[in-house]
């Protein structure tokens, strides 16, 4: 199938006093129309910078896209200037962040902000106002008429995230980038928001790139998943395959470190050591120092290998790509 989004060998670097920090260092993945790809990883792995790179929202001047290609609907959108990206941002590609309070304007009403999201992309003001009301109804605000006149601080965290979703979906984007959309919310609100996003995704046939550290959410919503470690994708596969049978030692470690009933009374797996310095990545495997399978070959950098079934693993272990069934 034709891919909606295709990211190839993306490198997003930062100039710092410590030298060049290679936050994203050769990342590739794609998102099919209407499907969800999750990018998972722990703090500092580069997942959020990957998401920001797609919209050219990397904090400048320190950050810059060193190389790589990002195709959206067949067009290399890295060729677009920052201003030309405006036609795409919020229209074809929308984004929601973890903390809606920092993305919403505290001095404007919800109605104003929703309408603006549409009028900047050419909708007439009266049409935008009517649609704003419809959107607030659709995302489940209890009193949408009142909400139009309210300010962000008057709403709860869950309601604010619903407003963010309404704004993101106002122009029926083809791709939604959701960066930790429910991390700040209580678990029952989180469940409501994720099921709302899924419903709307089906309704609009929208694709989603979901950035998260939460393996539970990935398991429930993503079709495909890429695991990032130290600025690179270390493993990628259809979600079910990856969860049933993780192949990269880092992914295996992540799963083994999860607390659960059947692990009571036993120590959980830990990943000893720390992530290497992004200003000075090791020349060999970046996970080697923490890996229980470390061997001589790990002093050279492993390439992302692809199996016949389409699994990708960045590891020298022969078993990483073996067919087990």
């Amino acid at each position: 199938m034709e891919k909606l989004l295709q990211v190839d060998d993306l490198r997003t670097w930062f100039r710092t006093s410590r030298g060049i920090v290679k936050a994203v260092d050769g990342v590739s993945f794609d998102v099919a129309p209407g499907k969800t790809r999750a990018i998972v990883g722990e703090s500092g792995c580069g997942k959020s910078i990957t998401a920001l790179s797609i919209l050219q929202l990397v904090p400048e001047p320190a950050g810059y896209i060193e190389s790589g290609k990002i195709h959206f609907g067949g067009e290399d959108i890295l060729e677009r200037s920052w201003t030309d990206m405006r036609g795409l941002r919020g229209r074809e590609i929308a984004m929601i962040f973890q903390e809606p309070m920092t993305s919403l304007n505290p001095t404007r009403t919800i109605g104003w902000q929703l309408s603006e999201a549409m009028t900047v992309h050419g909708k007439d003001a009266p049409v935008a106002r009517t649609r704003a009301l419809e959107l607030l109804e659709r995302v489940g605000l209890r009193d949408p008429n009142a909400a139009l006149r309210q300010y962000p601080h008057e709403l709860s965290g869950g309601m604010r995230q619903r407003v963010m979703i309404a704004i993101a979906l106002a122009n029926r984007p083809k791709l939604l980038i959701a960066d930790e959309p429910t991390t700040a919310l209580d678990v029952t609100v989180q469940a409501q928001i994720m099921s709302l996003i899924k419903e709307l995704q089906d309704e609009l046939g929208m694709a989603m790139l979901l950035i998260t550290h939460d393996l539970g959410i990935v398991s429930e919503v993503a079709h495909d998943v890429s695991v990032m470690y130290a600025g690179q994708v270390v493993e990628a596969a259809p979600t079910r395959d990856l969860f049933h049978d993780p192949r990269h030692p880092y992914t295996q470690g992540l799963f083994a470190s999860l607390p659960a009933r059947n692990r009571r009374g036993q120590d959980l797996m830990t990943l000893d050591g720390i992530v290497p310095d992004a200003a000075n990545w090791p020349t060999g495997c970046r996970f080697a120092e923490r890996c229980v399978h470390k061997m001589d070959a790990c002093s050279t950098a492993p390439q992302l290998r692809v199996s016949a079934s389409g699994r990708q693993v960045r590891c020298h272990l022969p078993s990483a790509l073996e067919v087990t069934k």
Partner: protein
Amino acid sequence: MSTTPPMLDVRHLVKQFPKRGGMFGKREVFTAVDDVSFQVNRGTTLALVGESGSGKSTVGMMLLGLLETTSGDVLYEGRPVIGLRGPERLALRRKLQVVFQDPFASLNARMTVAELVMEGMRVHKMYANDAERRARAEVLLGQVGMPAHALDRYPHEFSGGQRQRIAIARALSVEPEFLVLDEPTSALDVSVQSQVLNLLRRLQRERGLTYLFVTHNLAVVDYLADEVCVMEKGKIIERGMVEDVFDHPQHATTQRLLAAVPKVEM
């Protein structure tokens, strides 16, 4: 059941806050904790779970004496603790320590790790002098898996997981019996969370510590806690052994909470 009193016995605890507003200055109150009772037995872990605003952290703050109670009793080893003054209060404060969620906020950035870990020992006049306290701090750091050279560094030089271990070493420095753990792993990545959980389990095994674990993370409760109290709007709505409550939740809110946790299908 044995006849020894529970380590901690909380009876009909209430906390009310004055509400702002109210017409004609009428005094209205908000009840954050509403008639909460529970017991924690020595060497066990009781989890207090609920969503934000359920009152679970407020209970923890009152047990630590960081917040005054409106009414109710708290008995520690059978003796009332509310209203204690002077040396008795100080003695209790030594036995009851706390580890907070955010090791960034709870460790004074201007103190070295040695000063942070030695502070409690100084307050409680433990050990003869600072040289002995420092030696003790080094042992404690070793027990939480931190190197001795960490002593003369500052908290910002460490990762979140390391900082949380420093906070635990600090809590342990005064030889407590009871730890209130308020979301101690919520700010941590899972691979670091597992280190802290393993450490907490080991310390409980070795020192017979008793834990009150305040959290919204039900997977951690399922792994670590013996008993659980589920809170909503200031009240305990369900309590019991973790297996019983999680496998057969009776209250609709408990059922909703459990159903909302995304499952990792492996």
